[in-house]
């Protein structure tokens, strides 16, 4: 391996510092070599080639799936992804759950490394240890540790009921089955173990599962401002918000007014019923808008005068709405 180029350059800089070499000469020589290498590197650039796994077919279109590596992790995507819409583009992806035993982090790293190596299958192409991923309960995919440089892979069939799982289990808020901790492209999450339930809940930094998601409430009577679309009411990390039906493709969102959600009270989860009971207007007759305080993780309502805080806000305290007059604090919280 040629480390000499870099080491040589380092020594040349030492010589520049010692007055033995002229700095711009060193730079010129380096630049010539660098641009030449860059030109050949551009030619040799291997694209982000996904590794096709013929045995695993797309649940949506039956084309083979391929393993891709993104900054968020390893996942499978349909090989129909690169096609045009006319040719039947398919954007199906499958999250992969690591099939290797939980990486126990102990004092003896070397012992751990050896055990991990002994547990792994060997790549049929290059002999390197393979990483394994659970596709579902019947199929485990082994991918060469040098992927994507080596395309070696094997599909193992069997019963892989996330065996040996001793992580946290929570009850599914949709169907009552167990939810287990899994890892996907965007980090760890709880996934429902029931076959036909697709419920997931994000794992928060605190180690807790994120609060159950609310099903989006369609509000066909509310027209978006910019897009030709109507709103749905969603529940996000920053509380309730109105989003275009085709969000996130159409990125239009805003805070809902109290009077807008009132007709949908019955569709809201019980924990949000109190919001439908909030005052509709502030003392000056401005509409009250539902807002969320990240500090207290609670919703409150605040008067809105032509897109600016009216200065009035109301908080739900001890089972009833308390109006707080035109305080600075309310105006400030509103601005955020």
């Amino acid at each position, binding site marked *: 391996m040629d480390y000499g180029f870099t080491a040589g350059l380092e020594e040349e800089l030492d010589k*520049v510092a010692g007055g033995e070499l002229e700095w711009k000469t060193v730079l010129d020589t380096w630049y010539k070599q660098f641009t030449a290498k860059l030109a050949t*590197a551009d030619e040799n650039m291997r694209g982000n080639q996904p590794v096709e796994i013929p045995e695993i077919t797309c649940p949506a279109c039956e084309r083979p799936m391929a393993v891709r590596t993104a900054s968020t992790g390893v996942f499978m995507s349909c090989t129909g992804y690169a096609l045009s819409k006319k040719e039947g583009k398919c954007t199906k992806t499958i999250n992969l759950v690591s099939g290797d035993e939980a*990486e126990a982090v102990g004092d003896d790293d070397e012992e751990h490394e050896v055990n991990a*190596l002994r547990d792994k299958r060997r790549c049929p192409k290059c002999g390197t240890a393979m990483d394994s991923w659970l596709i579902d309960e019947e199929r485990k995919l082994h991918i060469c540790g*040098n992927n*994507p440089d080596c395309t070696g892979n094997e599909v193992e069939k069997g019963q892989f009921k996330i065996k040996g799982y001793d992580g946290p289990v929570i009850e599914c808020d949709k169907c009552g089955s167990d939810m287990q901790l899994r890892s996907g492209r965007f980090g760890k999450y709880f996934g429902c173990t029931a076959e036909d339930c697709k419920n997931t809940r994000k794992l928060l930094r605190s180690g807790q599962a994120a609060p159950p998601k609310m099903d989006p409430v369609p509000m066909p009577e509310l027209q978006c401002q910019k897009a030709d679309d109507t709103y749905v009411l969603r529940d996000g990390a920053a509380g309730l918000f109105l989003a275009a039906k085709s969000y996130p493709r159409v990125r239009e969102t805003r805070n809902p007014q109290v009077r807008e959600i009132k007709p949908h009270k019955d569709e809201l989860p019980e924990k949000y019923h109190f919001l439908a009971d909030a005052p509709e207007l502030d003392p000056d007759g401005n509409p009250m808008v539902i807002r969320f305080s990240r500090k207290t993780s609670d919703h409150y309502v605040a008067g809105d005068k032509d897109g600016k805080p009216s200065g009035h806000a109301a908080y739900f305290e001890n089972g009833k709405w308390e109006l707080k007059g035109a305080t600075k604090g309310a105006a400030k919280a509103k601005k955020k």
Partner: protein
Amino acid sequence: MGKSLVIVESPAKAKTINKYLGKDFVVRSSVGHIRDLPTSGRGKPIDKKANPAGKMGVDPEHGWKAYYEVLPSKEKVLAELQKLAAEADEVYLATDLDREGEAIAWHLREVIGGDPARFKRVTFSEITKTAIQAAFAQPGTLNMSRVNAQQARRFLDRVVGFMLSPLLWKKVARNLSAGRVQSVAVRLVVEREREVKAFVPEEYWEMFADLADAQGTGVRAQVTKFKGEAFKPRSQADSDAAVAVLESASYQIASREDKPSKSKPPAPFITSSLQQAASLRLGFSVKKTMTLAQRLYEAGHITYMRTDSRNLSQDAVNTCRGFIEGQYGPQYLPEKPNVYASSGSAQEAHEAIRPTDVRREPGEIQNLEKDQERLYDLIWRQFVACQMPPAEYDTSAITVAAADYELRARGRVLRFDGFFKILPPVRKKGDDDLELPDLKPGSDVALQKLDPSQHFTKPSARFTEASLVRELEKKSIGRPSTYASIISTIQDRGYVKLVNRRFYAEKMG
């Protein structure tokens, strides 16, 4: 006579230096770099006329013309420095002694402007009264060769950063050397990762035997040879076969060897060895070690922390020898001072990292954070130890014969602790000193118990931050001033990650 202005790069350093200079000096700090090549993030649009090189800020096609900009956050600092400089007769640039410090001094001179003759350069490798007064008694001028070496490094990094797309950067990190240290560091990690994954652990067995003579004096010996060859069973079957023979064999002491051995004290710290030791003994990251060391330096407690020289000043050695003799007695003072050679590439006339005053023992410095104190303790011990005599052992080895097998037992007794007095050795598991019993060659011993155990060969260990720095140093890549930033850059960019203090290469799509 008007006052003289002294400019350093950090407020803490300014405070310490201020103590040692009279009231004719005004000491100010530039709070780091004052200007740099333009960055896109700074808001101000690039003025095409003033800077035809655009965002890159340097033009490799036209004689490397550079377009430096004053950092927006430094405009106020600069205005004050300019005002003070206008009132001063002389301006002393007292930035750090390495190339980066030289370059900061040059940038300061350039932006402050005025008659270049009133700018003086002073350097010192420790912030003590003696060193500061000596430096100011003999000020020099800027060393443009060193400034240019630093500019060249900055330009190189800038050009690579601009001309390589992030995606190509990853490929470069793997496949070609761009003359950039970070890419070599990434490649070392990637290669080690591949080596580890390609490694197939092989089974082997070890066997120990507990033996005792007629009086019940026991010794534990390892089976080392079979028919003159190394004994290394590859499977349980092989091991069991040996057990069958060894269980009924007769054991006799074949030979015994006793000889003295020594353990020499370590060299005083340089940047890389300090990072290693702080990682091993204190669990500090490379970055943490350097930050703490810099604070100790700026407060005047240790010599400059970016160095690859093992030199020690005559004064420091003499004071240390006096301290050792007074504190531990003449038997702990070698006849002559211990001298340590620097590696061939040691670039400048620096010193090793040592306490500025050895008589200031760890724990005696007021107002030191806990971790700063622990690092000072480490540096102080290493320095005192480096001027102490070796530790001395009596080592012994017994060879036992049994059928076609040979067993060996080793023992070691510390006879004189030497530098261990101040720097106790880091012991690994099962590395305890052990005195071998008095068993004479020719005497018979009986087998009490055989203890076979299964093992697997291990792949090369993954790099830690500190061992990666060591590897770079061995390959003569990177310099004391750049190790810490290399280590952070490759992690920040997501090319590699640190898990349980070991480097893993990130998958690259």
